[in-house]
């Protein structure tokens, strides 16, 4: 390898960086026969200057592409440098980086060159070579290329830990606007097939132990946020569909970074909707781990999440009748819903209250954001009596608190409201 190698890596890593999936956990691939690596830890080895984690060697096999999607840097009509790795180069780079403990594994995506099967076949060949020839047990995340044949998708699942097909735009209308050649159906079909296989292999493994694993870390997808006009209700509704109907492990939200002068999209220089993206992740978390229903967070009367306050606080303020909650007696599900109390704190409270009646200072010591939580805690002793504040009063008090602490760190978007 040579100067060209540096250039290729630069081009193909640069083009892959907008794919936000970075997980390397959720698999349990063991090192076997004194080989190289294992995939079970989910370690972030580095962090970019924008604060995102670097866990995998995330690259495109090539940025040559037959499609012309307006939101994509690699689109056919974009006048950029093109490059392609060979199968051997990707394998060598993955192994050499992994041996030096730079990465947890490989995230391989690609522009579509020639056709779907031709592209998918090469992605599979790399995974296969890593597993079979290099005895590599690290993490592999492959893109499932829409339109690729089922045989190839099946092979991909046998060698990869995770597969993902990106839905790109949260609604069909949005997608058609910026990528007329694509449709949601192209994404849903391979997802459905993979879901069926993942379940099938799992069932079989229960009976026959030697059954190989099939995408043990499951499927994920991502949606671009803020490029087209979808509401948070549409976005979270779509995500809910993926979690419920497609058994997806993760849905990622990617705030659109303007990269094109196409007039269908926000102009270059438009700020990346970072706070909105953050709110969507918070909402996603509430649905997956805190037991919230999507329609408790957004609805027809409330199509978008509040940018100023997090969705859990928003829900609490709309549902003051559910409060105050007595942490010394309430059940876990309800404690988790108190603003300022996270999953870990909630569990700590349940454990600690067996020993004594918890006081406010006990909660503070446990890491509860007490200044936020106090508005929602039982008014009976030992907790101080708070006046009957209205939602708006609580909101203002918490916002003042929030601003004094974080105001300097908010992105330029804050200036807009």
């Amino acid at each position, binding site marked *: *390898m040579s100067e060209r*190698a*540096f250039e290729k*890596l*630069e081009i193909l*890593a*640069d083009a*892959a*960086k*907008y794919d936000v999936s970075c997980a390397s956990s959720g698999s349990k691939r*063991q*090192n076997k026969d*004194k*080989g*190289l*690596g*294992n995939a079970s*830890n989910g*370690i*972030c*080895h*580095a*962090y*970019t*200057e*924008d*604060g*995102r*984690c*670097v866990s995998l*060697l*995330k690259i495109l096999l090539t940025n040559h592409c037959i499609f012309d999607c307006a939101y994509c840097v690699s689109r056919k009509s974009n006048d950029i440098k093109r490059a392609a790795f060979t199968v051997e180069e990707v394998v060598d*780079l993955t192994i*050499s*980086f992994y*041996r*030096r*403990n*730079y990465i947890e594994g490989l995230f391989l995506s690609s522009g579509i060159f020639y056709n779907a099967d031709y592209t998918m076949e090469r992605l599979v060949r790399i995974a296969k070579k890593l597993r079979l020839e290099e*005895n590599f047990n690290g993490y592999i995340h492959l893109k499932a290329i829409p339109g690729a044949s089922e045989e190839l998708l099946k092979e991909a699942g046998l060698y990869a830990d995770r597969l993902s097909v990106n839905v790109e735009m949260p609604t069909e209308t949005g997608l058609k606007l910026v990528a007329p050649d694509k449709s949601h159906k192209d994404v849903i079909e391979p997802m459905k097939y993979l879901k069926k296989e993942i379940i099938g292999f799992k069932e079989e493994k229960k009976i026959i132990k030697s059954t190989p694993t099939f995408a043990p870390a499951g499927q994920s997808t991502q949606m671009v946020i803020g490029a087209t006009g979808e509401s948070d209700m549409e976005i979270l509704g779509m995500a809910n569909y993926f979690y419920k109907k497609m058994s997806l492990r993760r849905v990622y939200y990617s*705030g659109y*970074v*303007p990269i094109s002068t196409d007039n269908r999209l926000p102009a270059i220089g438009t700020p*990346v909707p*970072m706070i909105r993206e953050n709110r969507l992740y918070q909402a996603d978390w509430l649905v997956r781990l805190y037991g919230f229903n999507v329609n408790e967070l957004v609805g027809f009367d409330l199509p978008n999440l509040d940018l100023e306050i997090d969705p859990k606080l928003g829900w609490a303020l709309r549902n003051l009748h559910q409060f105050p909650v007595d942490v010394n007696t309430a059940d876990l599900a309800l404690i988790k819903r108190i603003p300022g109390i996270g999953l870990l704190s909630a569990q*700590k409270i349940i*454990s*600690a209250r*067996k*020993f*004594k009646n*918890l*006081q406010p200072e*006990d909660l503070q*010591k*446990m890491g509860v954001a007490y200044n936020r939580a106090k508005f929602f805690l039982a008014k009976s002793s030992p907790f101080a009596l708070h006046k009957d504040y209205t939602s708006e009063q609580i909101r203002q008090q918490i916002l003042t608190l929030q601003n004094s602490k974080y105001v300097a*760190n908010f992105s330029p978007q804050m200036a807009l409201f």
Partner: protein
Amino acid sequence: MATLIYDGTYQGWLTAVFDIYEYKFGDVFFSKDDAPAAVLFGSTHLVKTDEVKAKRVLNGLMQRLSTDAVKSIYKTFLSEIERVEEVMWRFVKYVFAVQHNVEEDLSNNAVRDVREAAKFVHRETHRMKAFVRFKLTNDGLFYAMVEPDCNVLPLIVNHFKNRYADQRWLIYDTKRRYGIYYDLEAVNNVQLQFSEATGNSDALASILDERELFFQDMWRKYFGAVNIKARKNMRLHIQHMPKRYWKNLIEKTTGGI
């Protein structure tokens, strides 16, 4: 007030705990062998590390606590935080004072202090699994220098052994001057002598694998290429990758050896 002088090992500390009960010491203070003897009040007791006594204390703890909680005492020991022995002792005293398991009594300071110290160590253990950067020598050894705040090498042995089963590797703690070395069979503790000659970069370059610098440069190139400038957030970056680790991170150094 009794000052217990022990050898600075975990076994030694466990023996000290045994002696506290044996000799019915009231208030205690721990001191390591090599610590300057600044004993102003009370008596001193020299602890003779004893495996049987240590084992009995450990067994007592295991009967009253979960495996995780017993491990958290060891992790606290490795944290090397100030007056760590007293932190551990306050917890152990509480554990033995009552019959039931107290590990989840989080409103108790002794319990919480150990939990927090263990968490501090746990976090750095995780970071060391992430921030080790191996360099390959021309005789096939992958070596890395680290400088953790806590003494975490004992806690990362298995991780690296399971992960890099087919390559010889060495992880060296430059702060504590010892390392762990895997020779394809087992992991052993090693101490190294660095002479002036091997410390300079010419000497190091000659022992590196011919492709080593190429991969270091590729990694730096990669690290630069995945950054999204429009989303720059240095505060977050430094929060995740504290500056004190940078000198051993290839992507945060400008090149050379």
